[in-house]
C-alpha cells in the first residue's frame, strides 16, 4: 500500500538545529566535575596525582562503573534497580561455589544467571505492575537471604585464581584490565543503543511510558531487557570483586548500592527517566570513587570526610544535570 501523495504549499525553510555551545558544555559537565575534583585532591595532597595512584583509582572503580552502567538502563526507562548490590553479593557466592565444577565457564555462567534473575524481576515488574522500587527492594532482601543460606553465612574462598586472573592484568602496563572491561562494556552497550532503535524506545519509555506504549514501542520488553542487562552487569561486577578479593561473600557488595545510584545521578542522568547515558554514569562512578578513596587518603578526617562527601555529591549534580531536559526537579 503506498502512502498518499499530498500537494501542499512548501514549508518554511528548515534550518539545521545544531547544539549550542551551552548544550555541548552541559554534556561535558560530568567530565569537568571529574577533573575539578581531581585537581582539588591534588591541591590537598600533591602526592595524590601519580600514575600509580590514578591506576589504582580506575582499577578500584571498575565494579562500580559496571554496576552503575547496568542500572543506568533501568533508570533511563524510568525505574530503579535497588537489587544490584545484593545480587552482586549473591553472584560472588555463586562464583566461589561454582568455580570448582565449572572452571573457566563460571564467569559466563554467573553473568547468564544474574541476567536471568534480573529478567525475572523485570517480568515481575511489568507483569504485575509492581513499582520497580518495590520489586527490587524485595529482590534485594531475597537475594541477601539466599546468599546467606547458601554460603552458610560466611565467605567462600576462591583457591583457583586462574579463572579471574585475567582481570587483574594491566593493558600496556598501566591500564587495569578490569577497567578496560568496564570501558568496553559501556562502549558496547552505548553503541548498541545508538545504532538500533533501542535508544529511542528506552528514552520514550522513560519520558512517557504511555505515549511509548501507544506508539507501539515494545515497552514491556524494553524494560525487561533493561533489568536483564542490569542483572548481568551485577554478575560481571561480582566477577571483578572476586578477582580482587579471592573469595565470595554474602554481603561483599551490599554497600555499593548507594554509591552506584549516586554515580548515576552525579553523572547527570535524570532519576525520573529518559535523559542520560552510560557514559555519564562512567564519569559519575569515577567521581564517586575518587570521593570514597581520595578524601581519606589525602588526609581528611573521618567526620569531615562525610560532610565533604555530602556537599560534593550535591555540588556535582548541580553541575552535571542538564535542566533543559528535566523540567521539573523532584
Amino acid at each position, binding site marked *: 500500500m503506498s502512502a498518499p501523495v*499530498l500537494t501542499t504549499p512548501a514549508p518554511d525553510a*528548515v534550518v539545521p*538545529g545544531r547544539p549550542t555551545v551551552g548544550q555541548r558544555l552541559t554534556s561535558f559537565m560530568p567530565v569537568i566535575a571529574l577533573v575539578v575534583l581531581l585537581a582539588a585532591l591534588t591541591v590537598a595532597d600533591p602526592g595524590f596525582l601519580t600514575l600509580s595512584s590514578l591506576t589504582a583509582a580506575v582499577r578500584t572503580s571498575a565494579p562500580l562503573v559496571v554496576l552503575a552502567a547496568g542500572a543506568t538502563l533501568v533508570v533511563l526507562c524510568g525505574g530503579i534497580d535497588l537489587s544490584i548490590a545484593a545480587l552482586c553479593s549473591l553472584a560472588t557466592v555463586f562464583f566461589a561455589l561454582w568455580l570448582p565444577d565449572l572452571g573457566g565457564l563460571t564467569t559466563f555462567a554467573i553473568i547468564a544467571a544474574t541476567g536471568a534473575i534480573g529478567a525475572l524481576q523485570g517480568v515481575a515488574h511489568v507483569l504485575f505492575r509492581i513499582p520497580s522500587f518495590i520489586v527490587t527492594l524485595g529482590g534485594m532482601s531475597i537475594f541477601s537471604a539466599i546468599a546467606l543460606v547458601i554460603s552458610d553465612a560466611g565467605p567462600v574462598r576462591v583457591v583457583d585464581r586462574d579463572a579471574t586472573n585475567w582481570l587483574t592484568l594491566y593493558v600496556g602496563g598501566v591500564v587495569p584490565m578490569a577497567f578496560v572491561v568496564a570501558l568496553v562494556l559501556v562502549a558496547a552497550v552505548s553503541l548498541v543503543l545508538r545504532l*538500533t*532503535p533501542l535508544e529511542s524506545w528506552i528514552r*520514550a519509555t522513560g519520558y*512517557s511510558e504511555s505515549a511509548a506504549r*501507544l506508539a*507501539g514501542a515494545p515497552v514491556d520488553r524494553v524494560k525487561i531487557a533493561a533489568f536483564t542487562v542490569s542483572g548481568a552487569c551485577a554478575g560481571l561486577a561480582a566477577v571483578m570483586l572476586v578477582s580482587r578479593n579471592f573469595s565470595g561473600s554474602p554481603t561483599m557488595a551490599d554497600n555499593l548500592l548507594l554509591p552506584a545510584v549516586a554515580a548515576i545521578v552525579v553523572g547527570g542522568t535524570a532519576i525520573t527517566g529518559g535523559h542520560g547515558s552510560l557514559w555519564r554514569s562512567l564519569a559519575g562512578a569515577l567521581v564517586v570513587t575518587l570521593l570514597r578513596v581520595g578524601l581519606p587518603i589525602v588526609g581528611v578526617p573521618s567526620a569531615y570526610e562525610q560532610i565533604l562527601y555530602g556537599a560534593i555529591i550535591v555540588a556535582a549534580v548541580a553541575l552535571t544535570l542538564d535542566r533543559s531536559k528535566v523540567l521539573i526537579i523532584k
Partner: protein
Amino acid sequence: MTTNLQTQPDPRVPAPAPALEVRSLVKHYPGVKALDGVDLVVRQHEVLGLAGENGAGKSTLLKALVGLVRPDGGEIWVRGEKVRLRSVVDAADHGIGMVFQEQSLVPNLTAAENIVLGSEGPGVRRGIYRWSTMRRLAQEQLDKIGSHIDPLARTDTLTFADRQMVEIAKVLRIEERTSHPPVIILDEPTSVLESKEIETLFTQVRRLREFASVVFVSHRLDEVLDVCDRVAVLRGGRSVGEVPAADAAPADLHRMMIGSTGSDDHYHGGAGERPDEASRPRLVVRGLSGKSFRDVDLDVHAGEIVGIVGVHGSGREDVCRALFGAEPTTAGEVVLDGEKLDLSGTRAACAAGVGYVPAERKTEGMVGPMSVADNMTLTKQQSRCTGPLVRPRKQATLVDRWIERLSIRTPHRGTAIQSLSGGNQQKVVLARWLVAGDVRLLLLDHPTRGLDVGARSEVYRLMRELADSGVATVLLADSLEEAIGMSDRIIVMSDGRATTQVAAPAGGKPTPLDLVKEMV
C-alpha cells in the same frame, strides 16, 4: 497615563483607555520568532477573537499577557498603564486571568481547591484550611456558570467537560480579585467540549462582557465569529489585521490567516471511488465487550471512513483503544483482512497494521522531550532501519519528506516535539503511522483537536487520500459536523452500545439533528 486615541474606533465618544494593549511584542525561541512585533488592543467590555494558524503565536502572546512568557521586546499596557508582568499572580493583580489550552488542574485535589487555588482568600486562614468556606467560594463560581458538579469531588474523577467547566469557574475568580473590569483569556476552550457545553460557555462569555473583556481563541472560525465582537488575526508572529465579527465570514478570516484563499471543505465524501459494500469488510468486529462497552458490532471496509458518534461516556473511545490492544476486552472477536486480530497489546496491533492516534496528545500521543524525527519513527522502525540498525540518513530523508508533505512547522527534525505548536505536534503524531506506508486500519481519536483550519483541511485531505489508497479508518470526530462530513458511514454509540448505524454517502449526508436524536 496615556490614552491611545488612534486605536479608538469612534472619535466622537471620549474613549476610556483600552482594557489591554500590546505594542510590538517580540519573543524569540531557538530557531523561531514566536512573536515578531505583535500589536493588539482589547477594549473594555468586548469579546475579542484571536485567530491564526497553528504556530502563529497565539498562545505565546496570551502567555505573555499572564506573565508566563517574558517577552524579548515590546510593551504591555493595562488600562492605560504600562506594566511588566512577571508572574501569573502579577497578571491576576492587574485583573488578567487565563484558561490554558492544555488543561491545567491538579488532578488529585478537589474541584473546590482547584477553583480557589493560589487565591484561597478566606478559604485559608493562617495556613489552615476552612473547608466549608472553601466549598462555598467554589460553589459561587460554579453557580455563575450553572455547573452542578460536587465541589468536593476529586478533580480526576470528573469528566473532561466538567473539568473544563472547573477551569472556567476558576478563572472567573479574577472578578473577586480586582475592582477593575478584568480581562479573561480563553485559549481554545471549546476544542474538547460538546455542543451543549459550548452553548453554556458562550452564554458565560456573553455574560462576562457585561463586566469584563474577553480574549477568545478557537480554530472553529464560525464559533469565533459567533461569539466575538471583533477578531484580530495573527500570522507568523505578527498582527495582520482585524475585522468586526458582524461583517466577516469564515473565509475572510481564513484568507487573512494564511494570506490566500483556502478551502474549508469537510465534505470530501465521495471524492474517491466508493468501496465495494458487497466485498468482505477489512475489519469485522463481532460482540466486542469491555469495561465500558458491550456487544459492539462494527464493519469497516477498505477505503471506508466510519465515524463513531456519541456523548461523553458512550464508550467509543474505549472501543478504539480496545481495537488497538490498549484496553482489555472481555468478549468478542475482531477480524482484520480475514485474520483474527490479536488484541493482547499495542505491539501486536501495530504489527497487524493497525494505527491509533490518541486524543490526549500531550500525555499519550507524543514523547515531549524527544525530537520530531524520533517521534515520527518511533513505531515503524523499518522506516529508518536496515535490519536491526538505525540509518540516520535514511531517517533524516524520510522525516524531512514528511515534514515537507504535511507542512510541519519546526525549525529542524531534531527539535524536541514539545516546542512545536499543538497543531504541528498533531501532524507529527499522524505522520508516525504513515512513514512506513503499511497501515491497514487507522483509529483516529479526535485527530483534528486543536488544529487550525488549514491544518485541519490537510488532515482531512490526508485521511481521504489514505482511504482512497485502501486504508480503513475509524474516526471519533471533534464535532458532529466533522463526523458527518468525513464519514461514509456513522455508528451511534450510547451507554456502551452501538445503537444505530447511519449511512452517510456523499450527497446523502444526514443532518446533525438526525444523529442527536439517536445519541440520547
